[in-house]
Structure formats: C-alpha cells, structure tokens
C-alpha cells in the first residue's frame, strides 16, 4: 500500500510539474507575442497622421502615400494574376488530375513551393526579368508576388473543391450537363466562399513580403501612378530602408514604425475578414 501511494504521488507530482511547465510556456509565448504588438502600438501610434497617407516619402520625413499606393497596385496585380493561375491549377488537380501520378507530383511540388524562402523567388525573378530588361520594375515585383501567392491559392482551391459532394456533380451530369458546365456552375458555386477565403489569405501573406521586392521592384521615394515599367515604391521596402540605411534620421524611424503598424493592421484585418467569411460558410 505504501509503495503504491508513493508511485501515485510521484505520478501526480510529475504531472503537476509538466503541466505547470506547459502553462508557463503558453504564458511566456503569449506574453512575448503580446509584447511585440504592444511595442508596435507604442511606437507606431505617435506617427499616425493624415499626411502619412497623402504625402510621399522625403528625407525630412514626409508620408507613406506613395509606398502605400505602390504596394496596393503591385499586390492587386499579383493577386489577380496568381488567382487565375492558382484557381485553374487547383481545379485541374481536384477535377481532372485526381489520383494520377502527375497530379500527386504537382501537389507535392506545390506544397514545397508553398513554404519556399521568398528571397529565392526574388532572386529568380531578378535573373528572369530584371537582368534581361536591364532595370527594376513594378512588373517584376508583381510577378514575384504572384509566384508567391500561386501555391496558396492552388492548395485552398483544391481543398475547397474536394469538399463539394460528388453526388452534386453526378446529379448535374445525369441531367446532361457537360463537364466544364458542372465544374463552373456546380463546383465553383459550392466552393466559392472557400476559394475567396484562400485568395484573401494569400493576399495577406504577400502584402507583407519584403525580400522578393528587394531585387525586383526595389523602392522609390517618388509617386508612381501605375507606371509599372519603372521602380515601384512599396511599404515593406520603405520600412526596410528607413530602419537600415536611413535609420540615422529619427523621422525616418518614426515613419517606419507608423508604416509597420499600418502594414500589420492591414494584414491582420485581411486575415480576420477571411476567417469571418469561412466561418459564415461553416454555419450555412
């Protein structure tokens, strides 16, 4: 009896020690992450103003208007480009490729590309587009971002199309609908919210990417109204430059923190919006 209870005590003690460790790990991790958010707010909020959105970047401070516009333009083009390719490829994987050898290879490669380092994509587009063209351009930046969003869209499109019940497809076929009609009218309308959620999440991911823009769109402190053939100002690169080569100017650092706050808020809002959309679908 005595031996038993000592084993029991030891098990209980061990359990308590490890569970305490887990709770402190959770508290530690969450506190650490909250600290980042807190310092973002603390350093970013004083820099917020209307000029931030209307002025261009200057050595004396200025605003981030040109960078925000450039980022929006490049992200939008990349998202459209990437969504077309991604949705089409995801459709093939789910509706035509299915279990074939080729489809599983593509799926595997896509999963690997999904988490490939973004700086590699930047180098790739640099060698493919910037070197032959001879200069940095907004197009190169958009293409680099599109390459990054494609795997995300493919993955979510395929997953969402697979959730559409096969009986729906069969019912449509039995009524005499052609295959493409079945996919476009039955599968897409069933998976629409899911696919859009995937695109939004991908969009959130690429809008904060810095490394691929370093060698493609570069940056500029001028306004660039849709001249995709020349260097494109953008928010992430402005943060990077203001925190490194321009960090001796306190105004630039202040600007960078305000920009960081805007960027993070935009990314988080996109994420939350995407999540809300998909949870509404779950309920329906």
């Amino acid at each position, binding site marked *: 009896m005595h031996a038993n209870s000592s084993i029991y005590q030891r098990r209980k003690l061990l359990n308590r020690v490890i569970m305490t460790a887990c709770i402190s*790990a*959770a508290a530690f*991790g969450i506190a650490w992450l909250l600290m980042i958010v807190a310092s973002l707010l603390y350093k970013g909020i004083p820099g917020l103003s209307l000029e931030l959105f209307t002025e261009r970047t200057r050595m004396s401070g200025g605003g981030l208007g040109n960078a925000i516009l450039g980022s929006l333009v490049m992200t939008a083009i990349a998202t459209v480009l990437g969504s077309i390719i991604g949705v089409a490829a995801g459709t093939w994987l789910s509706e035509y490729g299915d279990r074939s050898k080729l489809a599983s290879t593509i799926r595997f*490669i896509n999963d690997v590309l999904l988490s490939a380092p973004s700086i*590699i994509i930047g180098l790739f587009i640099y060698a493919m587009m910037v070197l032959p063209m001879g200069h940095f351009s907004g197009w190169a930046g958009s293409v680099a971002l599109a390459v990054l969003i494609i795997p995300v869209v493919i993955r979510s499109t395929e997953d969402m199309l697979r959730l559409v019940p096969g009986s729906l497809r069969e019912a449509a076929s039995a009524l005499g609908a052609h295959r*493409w009609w079945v996919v476009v009218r039955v599968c897409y309308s069933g998976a629409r919210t899911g696919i859009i959620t995937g695109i939004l999440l991908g969009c959130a991911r690429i809008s904060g990417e810095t490394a691929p823009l370093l060698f493609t769109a570069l940056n500029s402190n001028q306004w660039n109204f849709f001249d995709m053939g020349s260097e494109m100002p953008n928010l992430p690169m402005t*943060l990077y430059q203001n925190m490194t080569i321009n960090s001796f100017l306190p105004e630039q650092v202040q600007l960078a923190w305000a920009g960081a706050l805007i960027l993070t808020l935009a990314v988080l809002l996109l994420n939350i919006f995407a999540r809300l959309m998909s949870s509404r679908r779950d309920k329906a």
Partner: protein
Amino acid sequence: MGYTMKDASVSPSHLLGAEKGELQMLRRNGRLDRLFSGSTFFFAVTVLVLLGAIMVTLFISGWPAFSELGASFFTGTRWAANVNDFGILPAVYGTLVTSFIAILVAVPISFGIAIFLTELCPVFLRRPLGTMVELLAGVPSIIYGMWGMEVLAPFLQRHLPDVFPAGTGLTTAGLILAVMIIPFITAITRDVMVTVPPMLRESAYGLGCTTWEVVRNVVFPSVRAGMVGGVILGLGRALGETMAVTFVIGNNLFYKATVTGQGTSIAALIANQFPEADGLQRSALLALGFLLFVITFIVLAIARLMLRRMDRSKA
C-alpha cells in the same frame, strides 16, 4: 419535336434522331470541355515548370561562381568582395546556428502551448487563443525584425553586456526566429493533436492516467509524424528567413564567430550585398541562392512527406 427523315439522314448513325441544332451544341460543348480541361491542365503544369525554371535559372546565373571558384566556393572561410574571394562557410555556419537556436527555443514552447490549448485550456478560451496564435503566424517577418532590432537587441545589450556586447548577433537572430516560428509550429501541432479521437483519450483517462501520461502515451505516439513534420516545416522557414534575421544578426562576415557574437546567414548575406553587387560577386550570391533553395527544398520535402504519411494513416 418534328423529327424528319432529312434531319436523321445528316446525323451520324449513332446520333440518330438528334437535330442539327442539338448536334451543334454538342460539338460546341465538346470543344469547350476540351478547352477547359486543357487550359486548367496547362496551369497545373505551370507549377512544375516554375520549379524547374527556378532551379535552372539560379544554377545558370550562379555558374560563373561555381566554375571560377571551384571547390574553394564550398570550403572557403572568407567572403571578401574586394579580392573576389567568395567562400560560403561563414554564411552557412550562421544559417545553421541561428536555425538550430530557433528550433531549440521554439519547439518546447510550441509543444507546451499546443498541450495547453488542447488539454488544459478552458473551452471558452480555446478558440480566441487558437485564433490569436494563427493570426500571429501571419504577421509579416519584417515586423519581427524591426522589433528585434529596436527592442530585443538593446534589451540584451543592456542586461547581459558580457554575453551580448553588441546586442545583435547569431543568438539574437535565433531568438527572433524562434518568436517567429512559435505560432507556426504551435498551429500545426495543435491541428494534429486534435485529430486524436476523443475515445482514445477518454479511455486512457478512464484507466487512471494523469494528463501528462495521456499526452505522452496516447496523443504523442499517434501524431508523432505530424509533429515532426511541423517542426521540420518550421526549420525550413527559419533556414530561409531573410527580413527577421537581417536586422539583428549583425552582418559580420567573420568565420567562427562565437554563438552569441555577430555573424551572417545565407539569406542575410544575399539581402545585404546583392543590391550593390555585380560581376563575380553577383554570380556568387546567385549561386548561394541556388544552394539555399536546394537545402530548403530537401528539408521541406522531408517535412511534407512526414505530414502526408500522417494524413494517410488518419484516413
């Protein structure tokens, strides 16, 4: 429905009875079918082409460095642009050390948070905390880098000046990477841990197991492959991360820097030197990019294979 002899005579025998208009529609839809499957197939194959193009392009543009520097590119301990001598060991060393530190710090904390979220957390907190972790995994890496440079590095320098004389360095970069991949590994670990059927869990509790014994003997064994896959996926991210590292690693090219001293990593070296590089230096940096891609490709492939095995055994 006026079928006439004339209509029947123009249609092939197997379509006996179809009208001309119907035939046209059939043909048009057939063409659209082929067009649709053909174009989606084209875009699906784009993924393979993309991978091939990345490999080939980086290899070709890095070739001058490979051929001119030969073996000294891989074994050299000095990266000096002014004398055209490029050895990758300082950068490779930095990449390995920072990633190792990141994994060492992030794994226990991530597993702890995942256990907390699945086993201990009150139900009403489970969703908000889980969502918070997922949202933090989406924060752009440059934000982590800025925080590391402005908050963590000065903090370390002030409070541990003997260990971190400059504040920045390999360990600081490793810590920032850890913060960055904690939400990531936590999310994957939690996702695989909740796939364990409640029946298994409850029977173990019914036998009198403590929470830790249930986690250790029931939950972990059935999702081990998924957990390891998640960790390796985190490692893949740490190996190639650029922005979070560049700010805090110190960008010092000395080889055999101490673990807490300043150094550089492959990605940080590329980000730092590429904008001003040309000639052999640019080629060497592209070759370095090729190498980084090969390394991360292997690591990520292993991770995906493990996660896939996990999926299959679940199904």
